């Protein structure tokens, strides 16, 4: 088996939350909570997820812009390949353990492109010097040689050599992103991490930049970690995709398989958000309901269960899936004390006429997408009881009744990674029982 260029193992980045007079640590925002992936030489791995899920934190931890809390980042580029683990279990190529000289070498091996082209260049440094700065930092003191290299590189990314002396404000967003690409390339790295490199650009310019990245990647055999929230961009450029939700990778696999045969409900929801060019096609997106959890206090079990449209029903329960989702949402809202009967009553009363309690109950059901009757008689009884209690103003008791009766395995068990095809893994309880992924040590 060939050695991957980069392998990340159980990488975590927690931001401590401090409070009070003595800055006591009261908790941590778990921005990245144990992710693992490999990038082969010349391969593009996409990292996708909604905003706030920890993609950018993952990138800055991998490139060591921030010190990761724990985990390994093993970089086998720069001719460091073929290393084996030391007897004490550490890896000689672990970036988190590098000393200063090794870190300088790592900087030459891995570079990064940032999202916002307007703020990623110092407004007081000409773009030629901004690109040449890297050469200078790494010991090239001959300024004529620096200039020659940078001018050659500017031409390669589609600008002209005479742009060397111009300042960032004289370029458009797309041009700046080309310069950013030149800056990332100038040290001839093996790996480039691109953090949403095209999301700030017009669609037409996006395509140009993406094809430029593709060309350069082919020419210089680059590996790419491509971060984006845009599934269509991912499909265009990536070989494999890792889907991230709330600091964890929920599914990873080849791009075609992920797009044609998504295994994790979160991936399905992301895919359904891609707009289709057919005006007659129904928007048909999967709408994620329920609250977006906070990384300081992630949900127990599967972190997606509060929003999952395929959340599992316990043994012996078999109701309509939409009803089930609605029931869970209803349970959470009531428990949080966020269902205000008076508000509901006022809202309908605006339509006229007096209201019976039955009408209010029906409205609450509609609000949570629960059918008029739930298929399961036990559940239906619980729901009616809870609704009655709610209308009587006994919110706490209603929450208790719901919490006792409505439970899902998703909230209790953390899903293991399961293998679908050799390269395609996901972490969802619905696939429990299929072949579990073998622990994948990095020193193979």
């Amino acid at each position, binding site marked *: 088996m060939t050695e991957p260029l980069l392998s990340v193992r159980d990488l975590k980045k927690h931001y401590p939350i401090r409070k009070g007079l003595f800055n006591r640590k009261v908790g941590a925002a778990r921005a990245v909570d144990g992710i693992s992936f490999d990038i082969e030489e010349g391969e593009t791995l996409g990292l996708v997820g909604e905003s706030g899920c920890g993609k950018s934190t993952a990138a800055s931890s991998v*490139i060591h812009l921030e010190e990761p809390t724990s985990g390994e980042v093993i970089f086998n580029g720069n001719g460091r390949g073929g290393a084996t683990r030391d007897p004490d279990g550490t890896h000689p190529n672990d970036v988190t353990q590098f000393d200063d000289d090794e870190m300088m070498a790592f900087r030459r091996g891995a570079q990064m492109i940032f999202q916002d082209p307007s703020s990623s260049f110092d407004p007081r440094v000409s773009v030629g010097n901004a690109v040449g700065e890297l050469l200078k930092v790494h010991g090239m003191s001959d300024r004529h040689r620096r200039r020659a290299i940078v001018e050659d590189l500017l031409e390669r990314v589609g600008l002209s050599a005479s742009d060397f002396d111009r300042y960032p404000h004289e370029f458009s967003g797309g041009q700046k992103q080309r310069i950013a690409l030149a800056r990332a390339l100038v040290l001839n790295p093996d790996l480039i991490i691109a953090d949403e490199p095209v999301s700030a650009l017009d669609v037409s310019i996006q395509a140009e930049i993406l094809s430029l990245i593709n060309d350069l990647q082919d020419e210089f055999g680059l590996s790419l970690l491509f971060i984006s929230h845009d599934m269509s961009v991912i499909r265009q450029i990536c070989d494999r995709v890792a889907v991230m939700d709330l600091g964890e990778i929920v599914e990873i696999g080849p791009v075609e398989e992920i797009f044609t045969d998504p295994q994790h409900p979160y991936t399905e929801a992301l895919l359904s958000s891609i707009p289709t060019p057919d005006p007659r096609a129904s928007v048909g997106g999967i709408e994620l309901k329920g609250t977006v959890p906070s990384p300081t206090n992630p949900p127990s079990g599967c972190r997606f269960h509060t929003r999952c449209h395929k959340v599992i029903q316990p043994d012996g329960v078999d109701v309509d899936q939409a009803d089930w989702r609605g029931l869970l949402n209803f349970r959470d809202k009531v428990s949080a004390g966020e269902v205000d009967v008076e508000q509901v009553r006022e809202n309908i009363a605006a339509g006229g006429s007096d209201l019976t309690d039955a009408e209010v109950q029906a409205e609450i059901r509609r609000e949570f997408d629960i059918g008029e009757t739930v298929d399961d008689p036990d559940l239906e009884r619980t729901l009616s009881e809870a609704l009655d209690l709610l209308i009587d103003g006994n919110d706490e008791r209603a929450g208790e009744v719901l919490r006792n009766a409505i439970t899902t395995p998703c909230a209790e068990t953390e899903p293991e990674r399961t293998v679908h095809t050799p390269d395609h893994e996901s972490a969802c309880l619905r696939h429990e029982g299929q072949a579990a992924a073998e622990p994948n040590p990095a020193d193979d």
Partner: protein
Amino acid sequence: MATEDSERFDQVDWNDLSRSGRFDLSTNSIGMLLTTLPLALLGVYDWRFTGQRTPTFEFIGLERNLESLDFFFIFTLFLAFWYLVLPLYQNPRMTRYYWKEFKRNRPAVVSLGWLGIVFVGGLVGPLVMNAPQQDLFIAYQPPVFTSVVDTTPATCVGEVMNGRCYGTWQHPLGTTQGGKDVFTMIVYGMTISMQIAFITTTIVATIGISFGTLSAYAGGWVDEIMMRFVDIILSFPTFLMFLLILYIYGAGLGMFIVVFSLFAWGGTARYIRSKSLSISEEEFIKASRISGASTYQVIRGHVVPNAASSIITQLTLLIPGFLLAEAQLAFLGIGDSTVPSWGQLISAGRSDLSFAPWIVLAPGIVLFLTILAFNFLGDALLDALNPEAEAENE
């Protein structure tokens, strides 16, 4: 080596290059070193080998002496040339852009012209003009185009008509009660004003920038202590401190400059700190950090230049304060009476205000114009160097 001359990024042998020394000075630093070295040598020579009263340049037969203040002034001039003027020449595009923005402000362009005159006059004047000499026979000559009663001057240099003495081009701004030429004294005063401007700015900028960036980057309790120290500096009664020093040791112009600038950098440090904090969040700082640049390189290369554009304005606006303070002290009679500053001239003429107003008016107007010019310049620099600030004002 074959690849040594290759000019493609993918053909650089980094292992070879990164092992070579990192000793890499810019043209500016080399120039600064080359010019400061002779100055330092001259200073040491002046300090150790020439007598207290011997002029510095006696060894080449020149009757010119340099005080320690002069040495420091020349040093700040070198600094300004190598790190302010030369970079403007090296980055013509940026310079043209700044100039385009700057010249939209007409009063500021006029101000710059005036300050240019004061600067050149202060540098060249004392070299080409003899120091004003006491000559009681020609005391109280009126300025050119004006006249006074014949009895005011001891002897009238110009024409006397109808019992009035007319001014001449010999003394275009008249003379003092000691018969010293006011114009010459104003030119000599330009040197003093420029010395005050350059030296205070250098001291304030150096301490303020180092203190501010250090505080921002150290963070935590170091930051806390440093900023509380700034509070102390800002609330320190500098004037009383100066009076104290004055009564104990006696205070010359040098002491004035040192004391006042050592207590004036608080605002600059605070400003630089907040600016550094906001700049260090920018993506180009991250980009610079993953290039492998050390914290010092990032601060020196990106944080300070970006913060500096805003403090240039602040520093420009500090200078008038110093000039005024010097004039006020001189007027109160507690300034350095050995230097020919504008304030001293005003103070010397105040008793003759009723019959010889030009002795006070001429330096007074020059001082007023200079202070006004610095204020205009500061405003225009803010707009030219910081387009965002201008947008916010509109």
